[in-house]
């Protein structure tokens, strides 16, 4: 093996340089898709939890208020993340 001088490794300046040519990815798009991913995970988790509430809560009166509070607070937080409007949570958020 011939002796070769070590070539300095230059890391890419940003991740977009690793993408194929013509593939334009802005920070806004990344944030938007990250939010979609979080909301999709939230939706699956909430559906699973609501399924358990409906099936195993022994028809308790707590079930529907618990689900309603979760949905109200979650939608307010999602709205805040997307638009800055937090509805009834507005006095408590910056």
């Amino acid at each position: 093996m011939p002796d070769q001088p070590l070539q300095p490794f230059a890391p890419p300046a940003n991740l977009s340089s690793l993408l194929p040519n013509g593939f334009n990815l802005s920070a806004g798009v990344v944030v938007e898709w990250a939010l979609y991913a979080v909301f999709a995970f939230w939706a699956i988790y909430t559906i699973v939890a609501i399924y358990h509430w409906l099936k195993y809560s022994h028809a308790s009166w707590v079930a529907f208020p618990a689900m309603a509070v979760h949905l109200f607070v979650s939608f307010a937080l999602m709205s805040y993340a997307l638009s800055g409007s937090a509805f009834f949570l507005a006095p408590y958020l910056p």
Partner: protein
Amino acid sequence: MKEFELEPGEHVVRETRKHWFLFLGELLPYAILIILPFALPKLLALAPPMAPYVSYFEYHTILGRAGLGVWLLIWWTSAWGAFTRYFLNAWVLTNMRIVNIKQRRYFSREVSSLFLSRVQDVTTDVVGVLSSLLNIGTIKVQTAGEDVEFTMKGIPHPEQMRDVILRYVSLKPQNTGV
């Protein structure tokens, strides 16, 4: 009841869960994580070398707001999940048996019954200052013959629960060794 069918003549006497104080203890990590993005800038500002990092916690920008919203959503949903699991774990006493419903996590549920006719001994255990003040304890129900033990941990008013169990077992409290 979805988990078990009541026998003819059977009725639910009492349904109990872990003490609310123990549930609050489970909620504490979530509360800290929810408060963290609001408290951290104030704490950093107190230490002069860290003060420049306060600007990272600017929630009036689009990105900051999205980050804060997602952070709060994640921990709020987790806390609600903890409440769901707390609520779905229960002990049900009927006039014929004790039913232990364990919801370890989602899609992992165990329902076990112990018929009162097999109960030989009921023991209550309250350990610690806080448990004594709040009346939180453990009940151990032992069956005749085998080493089967039914344990209810962290329930409120364990003595009351023991008395109700014994009433339905038709044993006098002084004969139970409690």
